[in-house]
């Protein structure tokens, strides 16, 4: 190391010289690399997290409804096909549930016979399905 230029420098002089030296900058390609990696590793967006939460809620609701049905707390009407099939055998029992409007050969169900909590459950379930952005 050539010492002729540095001998006699004070600490303040040395500090000033080091401060004045050009500083290295990260290579431009690094910026692109970092931002691309960050984008790749980005956590799921809130919209997708909401959809996931809604799906869990939906499943929980269905499980609760099924269990409720088992214990007789909730009556979720059977599908029209089942009702029609059953109706052919036990016409009297199902008159309250099935509205006797005949269109061609299909029976149409009347939902008005459902208990209020089952109605609310189905309405909430449908609204959940229709409003959540499932990504």
């Amino acid at each position: 190391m050539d010492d002729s230029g540095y001998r006699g420098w004070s600490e303040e002089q040395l500090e000033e010289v080091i401060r004045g030296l050009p500083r290295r900058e990260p290579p431009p390609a690094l910026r692109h690399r970092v931002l691309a990696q960050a984008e790749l590793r980005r956590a799921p967006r809130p919209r997708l997290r909401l959809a996931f939460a809604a799906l869990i809620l939906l499943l929980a609701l269905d499980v609760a409804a099924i269990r409720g049905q088992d214990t007789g707390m909730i009556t979720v009407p059977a599908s029209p096909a089942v009702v029609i099939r059953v109706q052919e055998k036990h016409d009297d029992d199902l008159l309250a549930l099935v509205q006797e409007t005949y269109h061609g050969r299909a029976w149409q169900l009347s939902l008005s016979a459902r208990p209020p909590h089952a109605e609310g459950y189905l309405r909430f379930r449908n609204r959940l399905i229709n409003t959540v952005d499932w990504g």
Partner: protein
Amino acid sequence: MANVRTVESERPEQVREAARDEVSSDDLAAVYDAYAGAIYRYALALLGSAAEAEDVVQEVFLGLMRRRNRGAIRYLREYLLRATRNQAYIVLRKRKMRRTECETWIELGQDLADRERAVDISAALGRVPAEQREIVALRLSEDLSFREIAKVLGIPQNTAASRYRLAVMKLRAMLAGGDEDG
């Protein structure tokens, strides 16, 4: 994090809402533009290797991306430099061989008028112990106060100041041709 750019442009030291919610691409790019240089140079001072310093920069920013819902960052620059130090020490622990050459934050471009001086000072800095060199880097390259350096390193302010003085004395002696070494 949503307001990083706004707050940063006003007063970089007073970022209060950083990394609180989702970090958008624009936010991250703005933080990168503001601090990547300081992080890179600090990592260079600690590791002495440009390739490793680049990896550290990447890890620091990916860490910032992952950091959510953990409260606001009050001083973003100090936070990022602390994260840089942590990442650099992870690299140092994994290193199997001691490096024989040490790159520093000083640019040694061919077209520099005082290239010879830059080379001499950079070589002398490479011989200063890393724990002192990092303080010189933060002080003379990034212009941090001893209070800020102490926060980044997690040491008392007086310790930071005395390590710095020791490093400058060694540098001075080495440049003057003395025998001061590490």
